[in-house]
C-alpha cells in the first residue's frame, strides 16, 4: 500500500470549472423559475424530464459503486471515486422532488376527480395512485437511497485516511443489501412518475427499462470524466488500455441491454395490439413522434453499438469521450421521449418549447458544481482501497 499512497499527488481541478458550473446553475434556475411563471403546465413536464435525467445519472452512479463492492471488482477501483461524486445528486433528489409534488395535477390524469369519476378502471387504480400514499411512498424511497448513499460514501471516504480493510467488508454488506432494494425501488419510482402518466397502461418490464438507462448513463459519465481527467494527468499514469477497454465494454454491454429490454417491451405490446397497451406506443408513433422514436432507436442502439464494437475504438480515448458524450445526450432524449408524448393524456398538446433547455442547463450546472465541490474536498482516487494495488496490475 505505501507505494500507491506516495505516488498519488492530488491536483486541483481548473478553477473556471466551478465558475462555469455555478454560472450554468444560476442561469438554469433563473430560466426554470421564469418557465414556471410563464406556463406552469408545460414547465412541469420539462421539469420531470430533467428530473428523470438527473435521477438516472445519480442513481446509475450509485448503483455502479454498489456493484463494484458486491462483485468484488478490481479493475474499476480507480474510477469509483468519480462515480461516487456523480452519485452525490441522490440526496438532492429529495429536495428537487418537492416542486414535482406541487405540479402533480398537471402531470397526471388520475389527479383529475372528474376524469376518475367517469372511469371505473381509474377508480380501481386509485387504491394505489392516491396522493397521500404516492407522496409518502416516494419520500420513503428517496430517503432509502439517501441512506445507502450516505453509508457507502462515508465508509469509502473514511478509508482514504484510515486504510481500514474492514470498511471494504462493511461496504460489501451494505451493497448486498442495497442492490435488491434498488431493483425494487427504481421500479416503483418508474411506475409512479412515468408509467402512471398513462394510468391504464402497464408494462412490468418498465422498471428494468429505467434501470438499463440509469446504468448506461452511469457508465457514460464515469467514462467521460475518467478519460478526460486521466488524459490531462489528474488520476494516475498507471491506468492502462485495459481499464479503458473495460469502461468501453460496459457502455457497449448496456447499449445492447437497453435494446433488449426496450425491444422486449415493444414487441410484446405490438404483437398483442390491445387498446390499453398499444396506446403508449401509439402516442409515441403518431403526431410527429415517429421521427423521434426512430431517431431514438438509431441513436440509443445502432450508433453506440457500431461505435463501440471494435477493440480499437474501446481503447481510443477520443472515441470513448465521443461515445460517452453521445450517450449522455441520448439519455436526455430518452427521458424526453418517456415524458413528453404523455402530455396528450392530460389534455395538453405538445409543442416544442425553449424551456426544456432551462431545466437541462440547471441539471448540468448542478452536476458540475457538486462534482467540483467534492473534487476539491476529496481525493479523485480511492487511495485507501485495498484493491487499488491489484487494480494497477489489471490486464485482460
Amino acid at each position, binding site marked *: 500500500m505505501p507505494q500507491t499512497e506516495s505516488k498519488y499527488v492530488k491536483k486541483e481541478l481548473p478553477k473556471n470549472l466551478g465558475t462555469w458550473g455555478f454560472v450554468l446553475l444560476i442561469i438554469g434556475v433563473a430560466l426554470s423559475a421564469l418557465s414556471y411563471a410563464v406556463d406552469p403546465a408545460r414547465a412541469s413536464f420539462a421539469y420531470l424530464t430533467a428530473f428523470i435525467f438527473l435521477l438516472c445519472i445519480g442513481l446509475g452512479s450509485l448503483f455502479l459503486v454498489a456493484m463494484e463492492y458486491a462483485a468484488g471488482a478490481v479493475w474499476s477501483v480507480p474510477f469509483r471515486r468519480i462515480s461516487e461524486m456523480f452519485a452525490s445528486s441522490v440526496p438532492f433528489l429529495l429536495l428537487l422532488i418537492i416542486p414535482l409534488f406541487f405540479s402533480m395535477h398537471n402531470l397526471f390524469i388520475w389527479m383529475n376527480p372528474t376524469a376518475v369519476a367517469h372511469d371505473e378502471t381509474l377508480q380501481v387504480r386509485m387504491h394505489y395512485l392516491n396522493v397521500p400514499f404516492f407522496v409518502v411512498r416516494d419520500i420513503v424511497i428517496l430517503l432509502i437511497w439517501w441512506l445507502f448513499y450516505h453509508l457507502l460514501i462515508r465508509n469509502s471516504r473514511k478509508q482514504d485516511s484510515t486504510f481500514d480493510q474492514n470498511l471494504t467488508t462493511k461496504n460489501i454488506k451494505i451493497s448486498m443489501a442495497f442492490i435488491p432494494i434498488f431493483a425494487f425501488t427504481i421500479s416503483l419510482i418508474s411506475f409512479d412518475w412515468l408509467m402512471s402518466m398513462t394510468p391504464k397502461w402497464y408494462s412490468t418490464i418498465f422498471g428494468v427499462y429505467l434501470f438499463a438507462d440509469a446504468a448506461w448513463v452511469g457508465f457514460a459519465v464515469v467514462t467521460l470524466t475518467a478519460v478526460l481527467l486521466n488524459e490531462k494527468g489528474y488520476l494516475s499514469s498507471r491506468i492502462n488500455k485495459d481499464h479503458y477497454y473495460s469502461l468501453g465494454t460496459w457502455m457497449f454491454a448496456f447499449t445492447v441491454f437497453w435494446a433488449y429490454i426496450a*425491444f422486449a417491451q*415493444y*414487441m410484446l405490446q*405490438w*404483437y398483442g*395490439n390491445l387498446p390499453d397497451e398499444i396506446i403508449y406506443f401509439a402516442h409515441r408513433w403518431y403526431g410527429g413522434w415517429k421521427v423521434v422514436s426512430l431517431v431514438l432507436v438509431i441513436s440509443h442502439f445502432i450508433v453506440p453499438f457500431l461505435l463501440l464494437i471494435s*477493440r480499437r475504438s474501446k481503447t481510443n480515448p477520443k472515441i470513448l469521450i465521443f461515445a460517452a458524450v453521445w450517450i449522455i445526450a441520448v439519455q436526455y432524449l430518452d427521458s424526453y421521449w418517456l415524458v413528453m408524448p404523455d402530455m396528450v393524456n392530460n389534455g395538453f398538446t405538445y409543442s416544442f418549447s425553449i424551456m426544456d433547455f432551462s431545466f437541462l442547463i440547471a441539471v448540468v450546472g448542478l452536476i458540475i458544481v457538486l462534482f467540483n465541490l467534492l473534487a476539491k474536498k476529496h481525493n479523485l482516487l480511492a487511495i485507501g482501497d485495498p484493491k487499488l494495488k491489484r487494480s494497477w496490475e489489471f*490486464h*485482460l
Partner: protein
Amino acid sequence: MNNDKKIFGITALFDTPNEIIKAAKKVKDAGYKYFDVNTPYPIHGMDKAMGLKSSKLGYVTLFFGFFGASSILFFMWWTLAVNYPLVIGGKPYFPLPAFVPITFEFTVLNAVISTFIAMIAVVFNMPFNAHPLHDSNYIKNVSSDKYGVVIESEDPKFDENNVKEFLRSLGGKSIEIIYNPEKQTFKVFQPRFVVFLIIVAIITSLSTYVTLNKLMYMPPFDFMMNQNKGSAQAESTFFYDKHEMREPVKGTVARGFIPYAFEGVVDTNEFYSNPFLPTKENLELGQKKFLTFCSPCHGDYADGNSRLQGQFPPGPTLHSARVIGFSDGKLYNIITNGQNGIMPSYTYQTTREERWAIVNYIRVLQRAQNPKPSDFTEISDTNKESGNASN
C-alpha cells in the same frame, strides 16, 4: 519412431509461468516465427511475449453474423411475404418486429458455429482430426502442471541440432522430437460405424413409434386425448339437437360474404347478367378456379374428358350447343346451386366474383372450341389472349 518420418517440431518443458514467458520472449527474439506455447491455463502477457497479433477469428464471426442475419431475413421475407403470403395474427406480411428475435437467434447461432468450425479447421488443419502433438508425453505434461514451447520444422531457421541446443540453453527440460504422424485415410463406412448407424436408426424409430402410438394413449400422457371440448363429428350431450358443431345464428351474415338471392329458384336465366368484364385478370382468376373446382369432372378444356375415368358420373361437355346457348346467369346459377343432384353446389368453395370469373372463362373455352371465321384472320395481328378476352 524411425528417422524416415518428417519432424513436426521440437518441444521443451518449463516449470513455472515466469520461465515460459521469458523463454517465449527469447524464442521470438531469436527470430523463430513458427513456434507455439502450451500451458495448462491462460497466462497473462503471453500474447505480447510471443509477439502475436490480435486474432483474425473475429472477422469470421463478423462475416457469418451478418451472413446469418441477412440470410434469415431474406428467407422469412421470401417465404412469408412473397412466395406464400400468410396473414398471421392480423399483422402485415413482413412484420419486422416479429422477425427480430429469429434474426437475432440465427445471427448468434451462425456466428458461434462458424467461429467454432473455423477455429477447429485452422487448429487441426482439417480434414485431419489429429494434431501431431496428440498422444505425446509433451501434451500430457502441459495439460497438467508443466509449461511447454514447441518450435516447428516449418520455420525457415529450423535445424534439428541448433534448436535442441537453443532450447537447452533456455533452461528447457525433457527436450523431445515430435514426428508428423503418417497420413491416415479413413473409410467412412467402417463396419463398426455402419452398425452404430443401424442401432441409432432402430432406437430412434422405436422410441418415436412408442412415444407417438403407445405412450400418448397411456395415462398420464393421454391428457391431450381427453380434453374438455366438443369434437366436430361427435354426439353432443349438452346441446338439445345432439350436434357438437354449431350453426351461425339465424340471420347473421359473414363478413365479405353476400348471400345468394335466388337460392332454390332454378330458372334464373334472365335474373342475372355477368357484372364482370372479361379482363385478363378476371380470366386468369377464372382459369385458376376452373382448374381447381370444375376440371376434375368437366376436364381441363371443359370437353368432358375428365380425370374421373368412370369412377364417378363424368361431367358433360360444355361445348354442346345447349350449353353454349345458356345465358351467363344460368351458368352462374348452376355453379351456385348445383344440378341434377350430381353436381354439388360450389357456394362455400367460391365467392361470387370467382363464380362470375369461371363463367367468363367457360365462354373463352367455348369460343376456342367453336371459333368464328373472323378469329382466324385476326389472330395474325392481335395477341391471342386479348383476342380471346374481347369475346
